[in-house]
């Protein structure tokens, strides 16, 4: 695998993570428990869309076949998507959405922190912009996890259930493959596995504050990074890609 092939795959992973999570978060618009959270979630979704444009835009450039960020987002089928299974998990209740957000934010903030020092300046530049947005996402989701986890009996139980349900989808973030190895050797991106200890420390600290218990037994669902997805992704894409599929090239 050449450097550019690996970089293209890696950029799809980053861009597909933010794209699919953005779509999931946007599903809350108009349905959030309170107006303030509705706007905050919309802001998060918009930040993630912006990051998607940058990551997929660069992916298209690296690929060199003339595909734009829009082409990559709207004209690939599920097996060509490279997002983590975690971000395609259904929203569930508000607490579960925030738990998914927190687990992802913690990982993304560490990943972007490393990408700031990427040997590829284009990657470092996007990371610099995104890391400020993600620092805020993490602050907000972490506070919400602590507030709800260490809240009422009802909110605590819901947050614990959310953690139990999502935990098995976090292992995939730290499974390295050839793409990671090529990019680590080139100094472009960290090896996926290398983020694990820091992530566990960060997540463990917040979950302890939130009086939540990390499940003792864990199994890592995986496949998203190589295009093997859960049934949920197809439904997301059907929704997200409908317009471009039904009216190819439509614009306004």
């Amino acid at each position, binding site marked *: 695998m050449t450097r550019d092939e690996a970089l293209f795959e890696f950029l799809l992973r980053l861009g597909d993570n933010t794209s699919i999570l953005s779509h999931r978060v946007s599903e809350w618009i108009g349905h959030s428990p*309170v*107006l*303030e959270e509705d*706007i*905050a979630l919309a*802001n998060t979704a918009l930040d993630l869309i912006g990051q998607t444009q940058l990551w997929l835009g660069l992916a298209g450039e690296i690929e060199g076949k003339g595909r734009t960020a829009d082409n990559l987002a709207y004209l690939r089928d599920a097996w060509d998507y490279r997002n983590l299974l975690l971000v395609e998990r259904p929203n569930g209740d508000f607490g579960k959405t925030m738990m998914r957000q927190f687990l992802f934010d913690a990982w993304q903030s560490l990943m972007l922190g490393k990408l700031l020092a990427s040997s590829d300046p284009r990657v470092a530049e996007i990371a610099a912009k995104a890391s400020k947005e993600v620092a*805020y996402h993490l*602050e*907000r989701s972490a*506070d919400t996890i602590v*507030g709800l986890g260490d809240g009422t009996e009802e909110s605590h139980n819901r947050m614990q259930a959310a953690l139990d349900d999502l935990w098995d989808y976090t292992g995939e973030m730290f499974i390295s493959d050839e793409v990671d190895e090529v990019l680590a050797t080139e100094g472009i991106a960290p090896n996926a596995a290398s983020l694990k200890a820091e992530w566990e420390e960060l997540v463990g600290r917040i979950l302890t504050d939130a009086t939540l218990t990390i499940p003792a037994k864990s199994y890592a669902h995986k496949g998203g990074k190589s295009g093997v997805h859960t049934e949920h992704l197809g439904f997301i894409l059907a929704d997200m890609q409908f317009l471009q599929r039904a009216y190819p090239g439509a614009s306004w």
Partner: protein
Amino acid sequence: MSNEWPLWEVFIRGQHGMSHRHVGSLHAPDGEMAIKNARDVYTRRNEGVSIWVVEAANISASSPSGKGPLYEPSNSKVYRHPTFFDIPDDVGAM
């Protein structure tokens, strides 16, 4: 109603050197979340460099019915108004 978050009044400083201005209100469980919510609700278009929040219940306000005694006496005292000075444009916002 007891399940509702308290109401917070939000003040935002638009740029350095200006004072904080009241921009609106929102609900939040505590001060820190009120600042986060204010950031998301009131600074989406780059409006601010600083945010203050205060729980609405902590504001003491004058009573509208006290309008006469409170404000009308100053109406007849024009010499208190600094309208007799020309302020140079360079001074900027006052």
